[in-house]
């Protein structure tokens, strides 16, 4: 349970956005290309990628390399071979349809409109020739053609095939819910077994259907009959409904009804969930693998320092933080996202060895700490303090043999000083400057400076000199003696 909590708490908002965007892209690719050969090839490429990752993870280097090459080549081949199909998807749909709409609605609407208008044309004896491309590229079979890119509507179809329209003799190409070209010249069939009553339109319909997988709809001007040609075979739908079934079968859609729509919705929801799951798994594989190790030089930041306490020394100012994680994440980590914070709140004054623990290192989510070098930092903490120290005269030289320096007193005998507490702890006495004995032969006094150790100063108001009052005596005869009682 804890691990699940840790996992979700380590998710960044970028991770969630990343998964959502790619899940939606995958779902839209499915929605746009489903039922087409492109989709099947895309699925195949997906499997290839999966096996490439799998073989890489279990150490099959050559297999992984080969699959990677095939996948890369496959992606290019797809774009080349299915360029028309891809172009159709993106040309025949507006941005809203690409990003949001579901393709079957468009198909449904255009097929209904076309089946109606085709029979309307037949009833009024207006000849027409409409081409529904299949998966084959028709560019090599169709000549001329005027780009049209008009949304399918009854009025537009009727106007295209109106006798007064200069383009009415050619074929119209219907892709999705749009008429992409008009006045196209189709290849005529060279078959001898076609009925003698077939005119140019029927021969053209037969010709294209023989050479491609396109469905061609013909409306006979003389007899007012509707015929469809696919694979060189003619069908003669009697009603609008029959024509609609033929068209729906051709575009890969079944008859639309309530149950079919429900299934359609269920399929889309399933596809959306699978897209999310698949992207999540891919994201997990990318980001949660620990395959890359990098290191950063990070300055140590000290926190929780007690007021007045200073860091007077540290063994290192920067440490090298080694982090491990997925390459994709590691590459996005910046040095300023890695920090080492040492809490000095409970560290006493003096020299302290602090071990850098994982909790002391803050990292961006998704990466893990490998190690920190050095793992220990020696930090010296100190604060300013005051201390009263006795002052001692520092005599040098010698008196004449008959004299002794019997005693000396200093005024003041003590001085208050300020400095680092660690330094003050080591100092028990202040000494005067050297006082030469040469020339002293009687009692007297003198003013002499005090030698202050480095970084130790007299406190405000304290003198840096003392007066030495000394007494000189005549030497007696001396001889060492054993211990007394």
């Amino acid at each position, binding site marked *: 349970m804890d691990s699940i909590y840790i996992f979700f708490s380590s998710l960044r908002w970028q991770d969630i956005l990343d998964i959502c965007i790619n899940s939606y892209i995958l779902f839209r690719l499915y929605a746009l290309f489903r039922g087409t050969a492109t989709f099947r090839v895309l699925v195949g490429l997906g499997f290839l990628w999966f096996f490439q990752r799998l073989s890489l993870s279990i150490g099959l280097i050559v297999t992984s390399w080969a699959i990677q090459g095939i996948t890369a080549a496959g992606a290019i081949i797809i774009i080349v071979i299915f360029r028309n199909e891809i172009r159709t998807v993106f040309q025949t749909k507006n941005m809203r349809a690409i990003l949001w709409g579901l393709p079957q609605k468009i198909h449904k609407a255009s097929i209904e409109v076309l089946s109606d208008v085709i029979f309307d044309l037949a009833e009024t004896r207006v000849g027409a020739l409409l081409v529904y491309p299949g998966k084959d590229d028709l560019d090599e079979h169709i000549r001329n053609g005027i780009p049209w890119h008009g949304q399918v509507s009854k009025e537009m179809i009727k106007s295209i095939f109106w006798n007064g329209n200069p383009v009415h003799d050619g074929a119209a190409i219907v892709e999705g819910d749009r008429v992409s070209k008009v006045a196209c010249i189709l290849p005529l069939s060279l078959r001898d077994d076609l009925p003698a009553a077939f005119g140019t339109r029927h021969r053209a319909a037969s010709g294209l259907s023989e050479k491609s997988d396109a469905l061609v709809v013909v409306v006979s001007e003389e007899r007012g009959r509707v015929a469809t040609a696919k694979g060189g075979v003619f069908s003669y739908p009697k009603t609008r409904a029959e024509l609609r079934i033929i068209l729906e079968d051709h575009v890969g859609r079944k008859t639309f009804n309530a149950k079919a729509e429900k299934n359609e919705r269920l399929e889309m929801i399933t596809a959306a969930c699978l897209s999310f799951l698949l992207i999540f798994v891919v994201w997990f594989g990318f980001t949660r693998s620990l395959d890359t190790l990098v290191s950063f030089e990070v300055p140590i930041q000290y926190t929780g320092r007690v007021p007045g306490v200073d860091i007077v020394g540290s063994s290192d100012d920067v440490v090298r933080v080694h982090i491990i994680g997925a390459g994709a994440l590691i590459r996005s980590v910046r040095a300023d996202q890695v920090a080492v914070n040492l809490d000095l709140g409970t560290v006493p004054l003096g020299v302290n060895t602090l071990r850098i623990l994982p909790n002391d290192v803050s990292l961006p989510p998704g990466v893990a700490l490998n190690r920190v070098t050095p793992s220990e930092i020696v930090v010296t903490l100190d604060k300013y303090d005051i201390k009263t120290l*006795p002052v*001692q*005269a*520092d*005599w*040098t*030289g*010698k*008196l004449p043999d008959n004299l*002794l*320096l*019997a*005693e*000396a007193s200093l005024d003041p005998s003590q001085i208050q000083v300020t400095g680092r507490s660690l330094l003050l702890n*080591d*100092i*028990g*006495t202040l*000494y005067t400057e050297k006082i030469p*004995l040469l020339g002293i032969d009687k009692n007297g006094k003198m003013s002499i400076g005090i030698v202050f150790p480095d970084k130790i100063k007299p406190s405000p108001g304290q003198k840096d000199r003392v007066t030495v009052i000394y007494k000189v*005596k005549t*030497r*007696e*005869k*001396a*001889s*060492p*003696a*054993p*211990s*007394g*009682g």
Partner: protein
Amino acid sequence: MKSIITPLKTVLLFVALVSLSIPVMSQQEATPGKAASPILKKAVMCEGIQDGLPVNQTIVFDVSKGSAYCWSGFDPVEVDGVIFHQWYRNGELTSSFKLAVHPPRWANQSSLRLRQADVGPWSLNITNETGDILKTLRFSITE
């Protein structure tokens, strides 16, 4: 009446016992501390000891004189005990002497053989058994 007198006698007896016990307890507490710390009457640095007494009291010792002495006299000394002479050069302890003291009074000394390397300011702490500093003597060794 008899019933009132009996408890009164008991209370008076208790008060009397407590009053007597307080001085006894005070003596028991005070005695060890007083006996453990001999009273330092005099302590000096000198060039020698003669007849148990310091000779040529001084605060400057020339290395050529050979030795420096510290003499300390305790009066009174109530029980047998020890004191310490701790010699410091520039604040660093160089030698420590554990010296016995005996009732009723006692004097003792320690010495340091002077070497060329000992030149500089010195101090000597006289401490009791518990480490309390009884006196600090300051002197110099010169050449």
